[in-house]
């Protein structure tokens, strides 16, 4: 086992890694930018080095500074956390070329699954369902109609060079398909100088379901069940839970097995997440792999009883995972909400400032992961996540009740947070019945919030 690990991150995930190391008896070296100097979590590390000014590009993203800190700190491994360099295959490669273990997958597996085209190819070989569509570009209207007939309407016309929604069209029947093909090709030619388009089945109001994976270097790859993260705003997750409240048991099991097949096919090791979208008929389609620990990992820890960050470290040190798939339970229901320093009333604008009063929730069923405290100043330099409130109860109904009371106890003064929005979400019928999808917050919830709020709308 490693004696000393460098934590190449900041904030709550740096603290999470330090906590895991302390419980394992591993010393830690923290790095920090000038903006994070004096943060309390740094004092919990055995050493801490300033590596640069506030801008992440001049500190947390500078590979050579981090490797230098690892060298003077004399560590055997680096934990990258999430964000920053965590999915940078080059960084993983540099670490290992310096004889420092990168706590994550091999850079080869990271590259294979990091590239969407090769990831989809691996998924196809592993018989993991992909969103149905044309095999490559569409060459004629008649071909498009034939494909659409096969996969079923509505279909999505997408520019092969596309991005940001440009050159995208939804078609609900042959007539709108023919019109859409022309319009999309023209728009794509104009925007990307490439008129190539392809077809994909259009998934209406999809749910986001992802599978937590752990794989070691001894041929074991396991799933730790799924998380439903459908409540998002602009692809930013707000609420995550495990298990999914809507998927039938047989689909859950199939989905989890598909995720294991995929990572096995890619020779993937360490922790990772396989993301799917699920349509209203519970069909699931592979989207991508996140080759790192995720913000929402605690919900899986709570239902399985497995410490994911400790497991990452053990796997990287060459240990065998000490359980079988059949020994990984999914007990009770866990829900995480993200407490961000943002003002939902002002378009979720970041709300930096000093926390002048803080009352944290506690008691049964409550876990809180955060690096902040009363007197902490949230600067404008990094993301707005100031804490994760996670509840775990025997049933989903009880977990929601626990979430409501914990959010009601939670008081933060001095900055604006997502707490009032989360209180509202926790009391919505649609959420309590599991009737939400990735478009729900923007399609249904936010429009109601521009009107003056009704009182007592539980």
């Amino acid at each position, binding site marked *: 086992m490693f004696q000393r690990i460098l934590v190449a991150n900041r904030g709550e995930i740096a603290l999470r890694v330090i906590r895991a190391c302390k419980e394992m008896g591993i010393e830690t070296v923290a*790095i920090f930018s*000038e903006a994070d*100097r*004096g943060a*309390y979590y*740094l*004092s*919990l*590390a*055995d*050493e*801490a*080095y*300033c*590596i*640069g*000014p506030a801008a992440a590009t001049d*500190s947390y993203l500078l590979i*050579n*500074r981090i*490797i*230098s*800190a690892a*060298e*003077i*700190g004399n560590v055997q491994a680096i934990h990258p956390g999430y964000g920053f360099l965590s999915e940078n295959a080059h960084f993983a490669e540099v670490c290992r070329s*310096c004889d420092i273990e990168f706590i994550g997958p091999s850079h080869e597996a990271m590259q294979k699954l990091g590239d969407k085209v090769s990831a989809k190819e691996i998924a196809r070989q592993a018989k993991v369902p992909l969103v149905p569509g044309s095999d490559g570009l569409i060459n004629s209207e008649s071909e498009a109609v034939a494909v659409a007939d096969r996969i079923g309407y509505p279909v999505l016309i997408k520019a092969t060079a596309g991005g940001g929604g440009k050159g995208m069209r939804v078609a609900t029947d042959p007539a709108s398909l023919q019109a859409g093909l022309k319009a999309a090709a023209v728009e794509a030619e104009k925007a990307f100088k490439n008129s190539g388009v392809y077809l994909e089945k259009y998934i209406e109001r999809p749910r986001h379901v992802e599978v937590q994976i752990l794989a070691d270097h001894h041929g074991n790859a396991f799933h730790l069940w799924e998380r439903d993260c459908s409540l998002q705003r602009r692809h930013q997750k707000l609420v995550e839970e495990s298990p999914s409240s809507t998927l039938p048991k047989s689909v859950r099991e199939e989905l989890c097995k598909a995720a294991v097949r995929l990572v096995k096919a890619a020779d993937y090791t360490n922790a990772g997440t396989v993301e799917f979208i699920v349509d209203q008929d519970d069909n699931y389609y592979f989207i991508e792999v996140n080759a790192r620990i995720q913000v929402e990992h605690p919900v899986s820890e709570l239902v399985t009883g497995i410490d994911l960050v400790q497991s990452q470290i053990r796997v990287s040190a060459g240990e065998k995972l000490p359980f079988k798939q059949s020994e990984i339970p999914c007990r009770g229901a866990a829900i995480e909400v993200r407490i961000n320093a943002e003002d939902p009333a002002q378009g979720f604008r970041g709300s930096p400032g*000093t926390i*002048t009063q803080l009352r944290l929730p506690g008691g049964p069923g409550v876990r809180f992961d955060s690096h902040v*405290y*009363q*007197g*902490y*100043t949230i600067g404008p330099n990094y993301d707005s996540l100031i804490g994760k409130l996670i509840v775990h109860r025997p049933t989903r109904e009880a977990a929601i009740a626990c979430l409501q009371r914990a959010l009601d106890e939670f008081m933060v003064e001095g900055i604006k947070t997502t707490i009032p929005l989360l209180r509202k979400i926790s009391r919505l019928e649609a959420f309590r019945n599991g009737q939400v999808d990735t478009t729900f917050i923007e399609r249904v919830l936010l429009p109601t919030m521009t009107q003056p709020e009704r009182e007592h709308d539980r």
Partner: protein
Amino acid sequence: MAAEKSGSHEPFDMAKLRELISLMEQHGLTEIDLRQGDQRWQMRRGPTEVMQMVSPPAYSGVSLPLPGPIPASPAPTAPASAKADDGVPIKSPTVGTFYAATGPGDEPFVKVGSRVNPETVVCIIEAMKVFNQIPAEVNGTITEVLAKNGDAIEYGQPLFRVRLG
């Protein structure tokens, strides 16, 4: 001690105190702590409690009576130098290992009293097997060497002091 001699052991020179206090307000000082011999004058102004909350003492964890190993965070930039006002610091532009000379046994690049100009190499910081020559970036005379061969250096850490000129 010089201070002891002054006057008939009269406690506290009110004229000086008055001046200090009005200087504090004038210049927005929140604290003065003067020591000389057995004398100590300490004064505080303004909302100190709020200040404490806004910026909690760095590494306050260190003051905890931890039974385990105490977090040995390297000291933040400013060292408790007695000659704090004797020049400006040359700070490390990176994190790495400090070397005062090209090799073992060689003469150091600079010593106390050395004249430097902006291009003068004052030391080497090794980072990832690369030996970075650190220039002084100012004109002046080295008054203090703040790092030793082989020291782990963090970004922004003062390496030397230079009296400008």
